[in-house]
């Protein structure tokens, strides 16, 4: 079994270089090697998006990527954020402040069993990052949320509240909506 050296930045911390079996999925890498168990395995086949994590592209844009259907090699040399890295922490790792998306999810009770939540929060975080660069008009918000998060599956089906939470963040964050002329 061939090994590959991987190194990346996960939630702000340097990881590696470590040698791993080249076929290790990113989800397994996070859970087994880094002990980051917040990323959840749902379907394992790229359908449900519960395993979505965020990767910073070369242009600095955040991309949501499913960690179950991608092997660890895809993330070599990238900056990755998992649900554990969303909140602000001090140098001892103590929690300082939740991210705006996390806060909105809490405010709206946007979870039931919580299995899909990490994926939703990460997907929404990437969406908000995109809107920062490409604002949309207020009329399109619903559609933009649907496009970005419509494929995330929640077995407990609390979609209305997830979408409401994301809409709240979009509407209350300056610069995400186009000024009406």
């Amino acid at each position: 079994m061939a090994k590959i050296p991987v190194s990346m930045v996960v939630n702000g911390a340097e990881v590696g270089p470590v040698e791993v079996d080249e076929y290790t999925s990113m989800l397994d890498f996070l859970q087994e090697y880094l002990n980051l168990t917040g990323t959840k395995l749902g379907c394992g086949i790229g359908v449900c998006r519960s395993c979505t994590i965020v990767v910073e592209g070369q242009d600095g844009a955040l991309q949501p990527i499913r960690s179950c259907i991608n092997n660890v090699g895809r993330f070599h040399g990238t900056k990755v954020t998992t649900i554990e890295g969303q909140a602000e922490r001090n140098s001892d790792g103590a929690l300082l402040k939740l991210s705006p998306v996390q806060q909105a999810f809490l405010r709206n009770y946007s979870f039931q069993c919580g299995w899909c939540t990490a994926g939703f929060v990460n997907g929404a975080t990437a969406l908000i990052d995109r809107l920062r660069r490409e604002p949309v008009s207020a009329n399109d918000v619903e559609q933009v949320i649907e496009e970005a998060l419509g494929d995330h599956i929640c077995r407990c089906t609390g979609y209305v509240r997830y979408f409401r939470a994301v809409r709240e963040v979009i509407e209350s964050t300056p610069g995400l909506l186009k000024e009406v002329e």
Partner: protein
Amino acid sequence: MSRLILVVLCILCVDIAAAQTPIDKGRYLATAADCVACHTAVNGRPMTGGRPFHTPFGKLYSTNITPDKKTGIGNYTLEDFTASMRRGMGIHGNLYPAMPYTSYYRISDADIAALYAYFMQLPAVEYVAPENDLIFPANLRFGLKAWNWVFFDRQPLQQEAGKSPDWQRGNYLVNALGHCGECHTPRNFAYALKREAPLAGNVLEGWDAVDIRPQALRRQGWDRASLRTLFRTGVSEQGAAFGEMFSVVKHSLRHLSDSDLDAMITYLLDDDETASGTVAQTTGDPQAAAEQHPQGRADYVAYCAACHGREGTGITLAFAPPMHRNAGVRGENPYNTIAVVLRGLPVQRMSRTNARAGMPSFAKELNNARIAGVVNFMRTAWGASGTAVTEDQIAKIREDLREHGFLGEHQ
């Protein structure tokens, strides 16, 4: 006891056969001809039209073929219906040849009558499709007369002597009713089928409708069993149906009778050629591939292997088909292998409880050189294609797909 069951079964079968009305027959034929696929818009009502077709001349919409008198075919007599099916003559003028009358002119009278009976008893729906959006001179319908005159050559169906009845039935299904050639036959500058190269493959709507001539099918490893599985389920060990072909399986092929499906396969694989047994399947050399295309292999492992398997064996068939027997990878034309990496694939739903995962688009993440690397790795490992794909080739396909809005549809 078992004899009694047999007798009851026989009576039932006789009953079913006797009960086949022209409408039932028409329904079956309309399924074989897959009318619903073209005459239904996304989320639209079946047969009411409004589905767009992207041609080099602009956008064209299918029409309402329910028996609504105002907007559909309610005023058509059987003669009018025949004229539109066989000659593309609608009562309001020429139809565009996107309506496959260049294949349908070979449909038998009896079948046309049954189709007519079926359509005329559908619920009438009032609906007008959006206006076509075609460039000059394609927007002038009278030009189609000239087009028909030059390009519409009405040769009867060639039923070669000495072929089995099964082959002949398959020929009729493939070349008349099923109009497979409308997608799979290359077209000339005027978008007419190249009669000299039937079923030789053609790129349209950003996919390659592959070469389905017997030699090509066999070289890619298709046999009777795998074609039957593909036509019944949309997936097989040789790869999956996607794009328009998926909808053909979903709406048409999987509903055909066993004997008709077998007839089509007999025609497509051409039994006579099997007897002479000329075509060797192509396979590849994973070892050589890894040595020749190290970056391609690394990218295959990172991006593809989680689903398609480390040795290209796929994971579960219904989810991700294998690469090592994949007809697309073995095909001479690398178009689909490249396009699928760039475009990704949507989730495909056969029914409420039977769906296949989608594939993400890698257009943003992988540049042309790296896509060329992955494709070359796969084609060397499992395709034995001989010719390498180049960065320029990828760039060109990327540009074409981007221009038509097919790029990165499925993130």
